[in-house]
């Protein structure tokens, strides 16, 4: 009996060691590219081109960042990306929460299935299929290279996901609360703003975080619809690939500058993130 339990304990210990080894290997593979980017961004040009690669034995330099920050329009592009991201997030939440409320609370209404199909199309269809005609239309409407147009297009592309996510959160609110307020004569709008919004705030935050991430990372829309004046960070980062100088240092600096807000953001709002990323499936 005692022997068996000893064997068992042994086995459990081995299992634990195996599990931790697997997780550590996974952590290594997920973190290494990030470490490598940051380390390349603070290396002098000679240190990037040596083999064997220098992991820690180099003198750090800020030169790549200086080069990046001195780029024409860098700060404007950075600020522009933040502005577009925030505006898109706000629009998605305001417009999307209204739609999510109806989808969650009303089983059948006119245009419901049409809306659902449209949302799936946006989710499943390669963006280029929509952006290409939009680009051609833009000449008529003066949409090309306008920040406000980008915001509307970003919102259009991201709102189906935001609605879907928020519908899950509205679904979780028990209807009894609304029924009581209704008896007191509250209108739908009052119900929505005074009763439901406070209740689903965590869900809205999770959705907002997710939409903000998608907008910050968006590439296809601005690569086609943004010119010089409304350029965003992903476009700036991608421009390092087209010039064939193979200057990896500034490129790594640009990548770091694009990734850093996300990494900081991630650590700060960990809890909301998991809820949002898993589509409301994980509840904290």
């Amino acid at each position, binding site marked *: 009996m005692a022997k068996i339990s000893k064997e068992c304990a042994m086995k459990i210990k081995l299992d634990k060691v195996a599990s931790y080894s697997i*997780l550590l290997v996974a952590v290594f593979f997920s973190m290494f590219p*990030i470490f490598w980017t940051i380390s390349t961004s603070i290396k002098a040009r000679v240190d990037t081109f040596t083999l064997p690669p220098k992991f820690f034995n180099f003198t750090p330099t800020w030169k790549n960042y200086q080069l990046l920050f001195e780029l024409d329009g860098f700060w404007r592009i950075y600020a522009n990306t933040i502005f577009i991201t925030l505006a898109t997030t706000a629009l998605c939440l305001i417009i999307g929460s209204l739609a999510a409320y109806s989808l969650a609370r*009303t089983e059948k209404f006119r245009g419901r299935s049409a809306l659902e199909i449209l949302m799936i199309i946006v989710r499943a269809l390669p963006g280029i299929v929509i952006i290409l005609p939009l680009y051609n239309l833009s000449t008529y409407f003066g949409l090309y290279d306008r920040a406000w147009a980008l915001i509307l297009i970003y919102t259009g592309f991201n709102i189906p996901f935001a609605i879907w996510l928020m519908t899950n959160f509205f679904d979780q609110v028990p209807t009894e609360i609304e029924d009581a307020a209704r008896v007191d004569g509250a209108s739908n709008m009052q119900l929505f703003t005074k009763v439901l919004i406070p209740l689903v705030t965590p869900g809205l935050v999770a959705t907002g975080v997710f939409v903000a991430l998608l907008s910050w990372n968006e590439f296809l829309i601005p690569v086609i619809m943004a010119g010089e004046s409304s350029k965003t960070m*992903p476009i700036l980062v991608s421009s390092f690939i087209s010039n064939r100088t193979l200057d990896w240092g500034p490129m790594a600096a640009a990548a770091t500058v694009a*990734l850093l807000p996300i990494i900081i953001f991630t650590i700060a709002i960990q809890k909301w993130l*998991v809820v949002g990323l898993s589509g409301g499936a994980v509840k904290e």
Partner: protein
Amino acid sequence: MRSTKRTPKSSAKPTTSFTAPTWILLSFTILLPLLYGVYLSFLNVNLSSFAPTKFIGLDNYRLALSAPETYSTFITTIQLMVIGLVIQIPLGIFLAVTLHQNLKGSRFFRSVLIVPMLLTPVAVGLIFRFMFDTDIGIINWALSLIGSDGYNWLGARTSALIAIVIVDSWQSVPFVMLLVVAALATIPTSIYEAALVDGANKFQVFFRITLPLIVPTLLVLTMIKIMDFLKLFDTLFILTRGGPGNDTTTLGLWTYKTGFVFLEMSRAAALGVIILFITMPVYFLWRKSAKSVR
């Protein structure tokens, strides 16, 4: 007892009026472009020619459907999708099951492991392009340590496809993992206890109990991943831009090239309509699989 009688006005549930702003937005940003795309596909718009715009019927479709690239890029899309799914889903499940054992620090591991999925795909593409570099890339250096000559990763079709899948997996496996972790959390532990009492080993438990129970989640995941592979653009654009030649060009990227490299807008629009039809089954399957989870 409280009366459940309501006045007609306040009992009206939120409906069409609440979705109106969304409808207006989607009409201009999605519906109108889609319809205009269909219209455009019947014209002869080419941004590099001064020929007057005219209606040419189904010519663009005929050209698109007779071009070998339409088929080869479709096949590339499917290949990427299949290789990607075969790698990402099992790996994601494996990590999720490992995480799910309630080890000390599993929350920390989860937090760290999901970071890649949040990062800007364009920046990720650049990082990996640097790491896949033939001469100074760290991947070839690591391979040289184990005696391999290394590859010109992005210079040949097969290795480039593998590289693309590796980069996509780096961002997608955490997503699969996260959703599977969520699914695993819903399985009552009593089921496992019963199985252990009956003397089932780890593999039996996984294949007989865990796997069947997370099938609905896996279906949804597969659907999401299929859609993502159809949409794959950013990392592909940065890593290979569809090259060498058109060897790693997907149908979506081919549409982009037709429109914005060759400036054949109408033909690209026709390709767009074709893609719309190809993805049609996905819409129905998605509605079905999403319902099965709820």
